[in-house]
């Protein structure tokens, strides 16, 4: 599963300055490789756009693991690499009360339960923005909104110039007609209903409107003067917007998911408290939310502690490192770990707020392996037993049929399994039997259903090969699928064999001959209809010995030219119980009806054969 998330570029010169070295491309690629991120692009050699007469500075585009929200911005990648390289230790984040000792409060009203129940906040005091820091701050919020917050459905962030608003604050949910303010970068005051219309055509914001549009109440945050801070998850007010000159930032976070709410808070304050006059300090906010027992002081920046077993780590890494060494390795991955004073095997690992990806000691173990170097680990493959190979019975059976079809001069093709409903039914002159599995969200009309016949794919392959000399003989042994209410997945795959002869004459006896060949190789005896039904002597003997018998009967089906199609019947031989199977229809062959050929744009005649395979298992 591809789970890397692409990163906006970071300024190359500034980034190398931040990690203390002008790396060559190869050196930096190696560093990324070892740490498990990827240098996707280095634009220093490219022609870059010119803005205001200056060429945009060179950027590095770095891909990171999709669970590393602490590396979504310049600050985070630089910090992680610096710690990994031993250039800095992981900072300790702490809370700092405001100078006047009066903590800001936000009261959460019960009505918010109807739409967006959870609230969190934080204050960054005396922060110093530069153009780059400011842009990174905005970009990080965007990234979090897109990834972790699933397009703001789970979490939304708003940032405000604290000096323009006055606590205590309230988080409420009100009917849209009662919410009124000038939204970000607008001068006109409008109510929430008007805003919904106003932003309908907005390329960026329109996609978030459905999150609250149909709710009777919309979430809204007010200050003590009833000044609106924001209407999450749509838009902030223009009044409290932050600028390059803002020094005190109030961050509001609303969510439908409690875990991700605090995670987002942690990431933002961890990445940007560095720029506060007292680095890595955060001013807490008191949340009063009695109705759902969510009253608390946020953010909680205390590291989590998790015990990890040195034996477990050493065992999977194939090492026998003492606990101290493991602790040193973990230090390079942003952890603080110490040998437990009480338990001889345990490491007490303290996990900073940035590392929400750590769920289990397995995650700690992996970071030991990364710090040690994946490519330095001892490589010994353990096999406690000998293993016996086995191939699937259906695969073996399919291979027998494939081999016979090829030996008979047919070419194997591999069309797609998804097709349009028309190709599967109407084009074959077949009525829709509603047995097909239908897709909910295909991007094109080419993929509407899972095929219930192999024929459409074979005929499309012929259509695309009009330049190939005729006759063309193609086959496929593969699965179709149909609905089946009796099963957990309400559907089942069925292995089929199909072949088409396409040329200047119909090839009817050719596909018939192919059927005989395949049946012969599967030890099926050909009988006429009468023999098949009446068990004449000899044939009956064959049946008792486990032999199969098959026969064909003329059928009229709109797929085929009238009078030129046959149903194939099979009577399985006696099994363990000595009883013969009852006759089953296993397939059809015939000359395709000229209208079918026309649907598939085939100018020459063709004969097809399609057969169930699983009956021979």
């Amino acid at each position, binding site marked *: 599963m591809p789970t890397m998330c692409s990163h906006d570029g970071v300024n190359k010169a500034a980034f190398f300055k931040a990690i203390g070295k002008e790396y060559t491309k190869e050196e930096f690629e190696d560093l990324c490789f070892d740490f498990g991120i990827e240098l996707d692009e280095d634009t220093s050699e490219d022609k870059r756009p010119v803005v205001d007469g200056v060429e945009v500075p060179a950027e590095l585009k770095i891909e990171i693991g999709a669970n590393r929200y602490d590396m979504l911005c310049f600050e985070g990648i630089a910090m992680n690499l610096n710690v990994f390289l031993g250039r800095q230790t992981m900072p300790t984040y702490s809370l700092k009360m405001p100078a006047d000792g009066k903590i800001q409060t936000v009261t959460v009203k019960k009505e918010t339960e109807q739409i967006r129940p959870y609230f969190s906040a934080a204050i960054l005091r005396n922060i110093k923005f530069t153009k780059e820091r400011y842009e990174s701050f905005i970009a990080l919020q965007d990234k979090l909104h897109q990834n972790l917050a699933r397009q703001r459905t789970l979490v939304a962030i708003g940032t405000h110039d604290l000096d323009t608003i006055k606590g205590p604050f309230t988080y409420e949910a009100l009917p849209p007609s009662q919410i009124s303010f000038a939204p970000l970068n607008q001068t006109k005051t409008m109510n929430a209903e008007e805003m919904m219309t106003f932003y309908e055509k907005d390329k960026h914001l329109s996609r978030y409107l459905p999150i609250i549009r149909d709710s009777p109440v919309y979430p809204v945050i007010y200050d003590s003067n009833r000044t609106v801070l924001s209407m999450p998850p749509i838009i902030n007010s223009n009044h409290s917007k932050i600028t390059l000159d803002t020094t005190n930032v109030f961050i509001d976070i609303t969510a439908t998911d409690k875990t991700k709410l605090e995670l987002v808070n942690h990431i933002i304050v961890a990445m940007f408290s560095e720029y506060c006059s007292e680095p890595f300090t955060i001013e807490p906010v008191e949340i009063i939310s009695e109705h759902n027992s969510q009253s608390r002081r946020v953010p909680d920046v205390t590291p989590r502690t998790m015990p990890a077993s040195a034996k477990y780590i050493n065992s999977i890494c194939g090492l026998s490192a003492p606990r101290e060494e493991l602790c040193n390795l973990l230090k390079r991955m942003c952890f603080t770990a110490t040998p437990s004073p009480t338990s001889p095997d345990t490491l007490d690992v303290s996990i900073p707020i940035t590392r929400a990806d750590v769920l289990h000691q397995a995650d700690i173990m992996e970071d030991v392996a990364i710090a040690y170097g994946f490519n330095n680990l001892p490589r010994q493959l353990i096999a406690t037993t000998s293993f016996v190979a086995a191939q699937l019975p259906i695969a073996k059976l399919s291979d027998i049929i494939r081999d016979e079809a090829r030996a008979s001069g047919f070419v194997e093709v591999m069309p797609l*399994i998804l097709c349009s409903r028309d190709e599967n039914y109407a084009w074959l002159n077949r009525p829709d039997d509603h047995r097909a599995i239908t897709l909910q969200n295909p991007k094109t009309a080419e993929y509407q259903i899972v095929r219930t016949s192999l024929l459409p794919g074979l005929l499309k392959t012929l259509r695309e090969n009009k330049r190939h000399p005729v006759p063309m003989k193609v086959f496929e042994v593969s699965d179709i699928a149909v609905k089946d209410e009796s099963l*957990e997945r309400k559907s089942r795959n069925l292995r089929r064999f199909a072949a088409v002869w396409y040329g200047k004459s119909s090839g009817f006896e050719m596909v018939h001959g192919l059927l005989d060949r395949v049946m012969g190789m599967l030890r099926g005896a050909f009988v006429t209809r009468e023999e098949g039904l009446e068990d004449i002597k000899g044939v009956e003997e064959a049946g008792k010995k486990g032999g199969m018998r098959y026969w064909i009967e003329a059928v009229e089906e709109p797929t085929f030219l009238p009078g030129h199609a046959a149903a194939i019947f099979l009577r399985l031989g006696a099994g363990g119980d000595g009883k013969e199977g009852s006759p089953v229809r296993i397939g059809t062959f015939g000359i395709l009806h000229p209208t079918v050929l026309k649907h598939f744009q085939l100018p020459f005649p063709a004969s097809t054969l399609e057969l169930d395979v699983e009956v021979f298992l």
Partner: protein
Amino acid sequence: MPGTRGPVPIPLHINGGQRDLTAEILEAVDQEAEVGTSTKFPQIPQAEIKAALDRLASRSMVEYDTKDREEVALTKEGEEIASAGSHEYKVWDAVRQAGRLSLKDPSLAGANAKIGQGNAFKLKWVKKDGDALVSLTDSVQDATREQLQCAKENRTFQDPKVQKDFMKRKLVVPQKVISYVARKGPKWAMEMPVEVTDLTAEMIADGSWQTANWKPYNYKAEGAQLSGGAFHPLMKVRQEFREIFFNMGFTEMPTQRFVDTGFWNFDTLFVPQQHPARDLQDTFYVSDPPEAGPPGPDPATDEALAQMDDQDEQDENDSAPASAATRAKDISSKLDYQQYFNNVRSVHQDGAFGSIGYRYPYNDAETKRLVLRTHTTAVSAYVLHRLAANPRPCRYFSIDRVFRNETVDATHLAEFHQIEGVIADFGLTLGGLQAFLKRFFRKIGVPDLKFKPAYNPYTEPSMEVYAWHAGLNKLVEIGNSGMFRPEMLQAMGLPEDLRCYGFGLSLERPTMIKYGISNIRELLGHKVDLGFIEGNPAVRLDRE
């Protein structure tokens, strides 16, 4: 004479049977010691003459030398002069006929007339008299015309200076001409013997093969084109991989289910319900049938697995082995699917098995959504859960179709094949996975691997497999691997010390790299060229 009669006479006639060129050549060579073909057969194209000579020479009846000769040929202007006279002649002739020709006369207009006028002055054939021309002589010798007529006949000039001058004037151009000089060869004969091209049953029966005059075989030509069937290249590569897996003791997993549930495809693999991979943008959801049933045993899968299981007890006592269906039921009766579902839910929602979990409200409806499987790992999860009935070391693999709701381009299709391997054993290490992967990839001709830390929701550690690509001169990713997370394995009820490797790659990517295919649509789907399938060489991954 032996050999003059045979079952397969050589056709002596060429050129639609109108002319027997070989006979004509033989006649000419009989009469003259050296026959120059350009003079003897001037009208016949050189290629035909060569073909006839080759036929005779291959039987040593004649020998021939090839001659390159440079000739001159008249240009269009040259031809005109040769037939109607030079430009100066035309001017003089016009003046002579008029007696006195005004300079403004239309016959003196045009580039050629200007040249002719100049030359006629130089030759003193005409002179200017006021505003008209008058002739100075009653008769002239048109040397240009005569020289061109001579060159046309002899295809050369006697004086190379003259040739150069005429070439400069663009009246003639040089031409390279190949001709042949033929003479009698060591096996000279006047008639082409009738020759035998092939051995037949009659010849063996009547003994005539002993005295047959065999037509020489053309060893420069290709053999006959045989028509026959062919396997699809992807299936050939698939078979190579299957053999490698069998060689390493793997059992093939039953993957006959395109449709799977949100539970098996994602939840069992510890993929959180809000993971982007579960978006409509990435995964095909099924609208009909609308919803899955609760997780439970799949009899078809269980029976196929039981059929392949080698169980010692079967051989160690006297009773006949139980049928696969019975054994399958026996195994599934030991498994509690409801408990498994609860375990999966709690490890996502609340944390369990030493994990704090994702801590989000788990939505049962998501587990019942039907999807087109996005990976065969959904089947691996089923098979590993079944292993909990009798936890033991084992190796499983599968190669089958998977589906992604991709926008189709040169490297992406909505369908492709996933190759997946799973190894469960006690005491497995991460370095051991590297050692295994090195062995695996060495067998497909990729000896040098590097391993990169990566992220995958169901493996920890996760490792991307890179190999050096000589063509691109850089490391390229060729597969993914890792050790399944405890959250996934312990929810299944597998013991803590039974660890599990998983690794995978697509079937299409290595095939495209090996065969230099840049567009996946040329490999999978109905747009594949049948000629490509028919002509694709055998697959020997270890040697290529």
